[in-house]
């Protein structure tokens, strides 16, 4: 059964496999099921430290899922995704502290503004590809780094920047239904599941087919009647939206954000780990999120120097590029497929 679901997520197959179109519902249900098992397992097994680390990891995996669409579906390299996480976080904090709406509203505002900014950041992509797009987006990430290190994140103060000059910094309230650490983790997992499902639906349905055509070549896409501009712009907006939501969820985890954690390097890191995690399978995003936050947490827990993570990520990226372009998720899904074939007997031959 699994074997059927998996090839669909790989773009090469989705092109040639048009004859037998499987139902969209099953893979989506599979996501919900997997995430449910994952979140309950983590919620029961982890202590406060790991719960906090996993909350960040799952929140960040939402931003990875956006990046995975740009890279996995369209082949576009965007190196400013973490800056968009920052934009979403900034807006969520600003709205949250100014009007104290329900958390969901601040989060949505963060997502929408990040989507708009992502759209603007995506404008160069209409003309540029490959290295040039990477350079331009990296510079945008650098711009964000400069701005945010000067502005900082809002913490309950007055004015546009919302910096508190008087008493201590105010914290962004978590959603009223999930104020505790475990409840908030489950909340973030639910949001991530929703995001994964939306993204997977996009890949399996019409937008996914359009993106695949654009990836083949814009002439091909235009000839097939695909509106290249709309679908590219939509991908950027969607990617930005999920980055923004991730930023808001991160802000909700600690109650605030800090400008120093949003350097351009983080965007590079995010992109590298998207590749390592795997940008063709939905759970690649989850793996990348865990790599981003759980691996450093593990090293911290073991008392290993924080710099070691960067080295480990570098080696992992090299490994992924050299031997496993579909990332860890691709390898896992290949394994599942092989096991599936073994069980279904003769089909393997």
């Amino acid at each position: 059964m699994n074997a059927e679901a998996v090839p669909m997520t790989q773009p090469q197959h989705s092109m040639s496999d048009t004859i037998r179109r499987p139902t969209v519902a099953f893979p989506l249900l599979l996501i919900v099921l997997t995430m449910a098992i994952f979140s309950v397992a983590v919620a029961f097994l982890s202590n406060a430290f790991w719960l906090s680390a996993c909350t960040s990891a799952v929140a960040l995996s939402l931003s990875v899922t956006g990046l995975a669409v740009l890279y996995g579906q369209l082949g576009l390299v965007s190196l400013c995704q973490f800056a968009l996480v920052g934009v979403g976080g900034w807006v969520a904090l600003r709205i949250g502290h100014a009007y104290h709406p329900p958390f969901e509203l601040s989060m949505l505002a963060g997502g929408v503004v990040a989507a708009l900014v992502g759209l603007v950041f995506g404008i160069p992509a209409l003309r540029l590809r490959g290295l040039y797009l990477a350079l331009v987006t990296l510079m945008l990430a650098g711009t964000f780094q400069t701005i945010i290190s000067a502005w900082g994140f809002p913490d309950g103060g007055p004015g546009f920047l919302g910096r508190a000059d008087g008493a201590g910094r105010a914290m962004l309230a978590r959603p009223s239904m999930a104020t505790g650490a475990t409840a908030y983790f489950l909340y973030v997992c639910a949001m991530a599941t929703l995001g994964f499902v939306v993204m997977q639906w996009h890949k399996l349905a019409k937008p996914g087919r359009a993106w695949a055509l654009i990836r083949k070549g814009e002439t091909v896409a235009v000839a097939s009647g695909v509106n290249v501009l709309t679908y590219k712009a939509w991908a950027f907006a969607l990617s930005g939206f999920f980055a923004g939501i991730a930023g808001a969820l991160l802000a909700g985890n600690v109650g605030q954000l800090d400008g120093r954690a949003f350097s351009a390097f983080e965007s590079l890191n995010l992109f590298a780990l998207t590749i390592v995690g795997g940008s063709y399978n939905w759970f690649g995003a989850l793996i990348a999120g865990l790599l981003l936050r759980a691996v450093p947490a593990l090293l911290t827990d073991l008392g290993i120097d924080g710099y070691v993570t960067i080295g480990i990520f570098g080696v992992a990226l090299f490994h992924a590029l050299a031997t496993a372009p579909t990332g860890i998720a691709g390898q896992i899904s290949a394994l599942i497929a092989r096991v599936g074939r073994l069980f279904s007997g003769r089909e393997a031959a």
Partner: protein
Amino acid sequence: MLKILKVMAASLTLGLLSALSAHAAVSCGDNSGKPATGEPIIIGAITGKTGPDDFSNSTKSALAYFNCLNANGGIKGRPVKYLVEDDQWNPETAAQLAAKLVNDQKAVLMVGNSSYVECGANAEFYKKAGIEVIAGVGVPRECFFAQNYAPTNAGPRVSMLGAMGYALDKLNAKSVACIGPNIPNVGTWSCDGVVSLAKEKGFKAETILMDPGSADATSIILKAAASKPDVIVLGMSKGVAVPLLTAAEEQGLNQTITFLSAASAYDLSVPATIGPAWDGKFFVNMEFNDLQATTPDNQNWLAVMDKYGQKSDPRDTFAQAGYLAARIAEKALMTLDPKNITRETVSAAVRQVKGFQSDIFCAPWYFGDGQPRHNANSSTRMAVSEGGKWKVVSDCAPSPDPELKDVRAFEATMK
């Protein structure tokens, strides 16, 4: 009368201590030389080790003192288990680590914390968890405006205004340019202090904020000199301050303008690095006593570092801060029944700390029970660069920071 007696008693004990230390060299715990073997007392710390700068000297020094304490009877027989975590200058990590130390490891107290990001990230959490923090080095504003967080150092603003006060009183400055990093709650906070003091005392002040990561030192210095100030005060780390001074020297500005700096540029290597052109021209504020002071407690700190620390542990002002934090923690814990050391009893004892004497401090340190914020260390000294060394040029003087009014008012009620 009682006060005089108290002072006499204190000086007598200090004198006795110094006489003792001549023999024992190292003083900590009950000085019995018997290792503590009881159930460990868990104390945590969060520090920014990996990242833009290494802030872990404070916890290294605190660890050395706790090692010394554990080798000398511990807290009435119970050793201290000191858990230090690196927040990597990331507030998210800092929050995770606080959860780990407080919720998972069940720490009863935090000691020696020194981090750029931790105060803002964790102050609320500490308050909710009912745990107190005797921090080593606090830098951003959040470290001095939290209910459960009391650093031993003075902080960049108090230190910068200490330097400013010296410029006003001793150098007769009538105008100033303040150069600070454009980091919210650090540079702006410090230079705002200079501006508000200027309003209060009626001198001219100008603020220049710079990005410490990417700045052209010459253009910054020229911008600061454009208003022809009598003095320029710097709020930068030594890594940024030294290039600024070099650029100023290239422009010949060291001949016409006196430069001062907050304690962030107080490092033994600085005078030799900037050279003889700055002799008598570059003043620095000190949050603690001279690193090489021959006073008893400073000597004890150095001796503890030699015997119980690593050779590679730096002997800088951060280390002084960590040592003091550990000693204050020891003082608080010693008041407790060793069988009844819980987070509640420890927090209560820490809140009661007052009149903590050390010659590394200018004034006795206190926690400030019930205060919404803490800044006990607010009197500082000044030193000047001379012949490749720092020469201490002033006695302890209270920092003229207008924002310290609440702290001064509280101190008045303690007397």
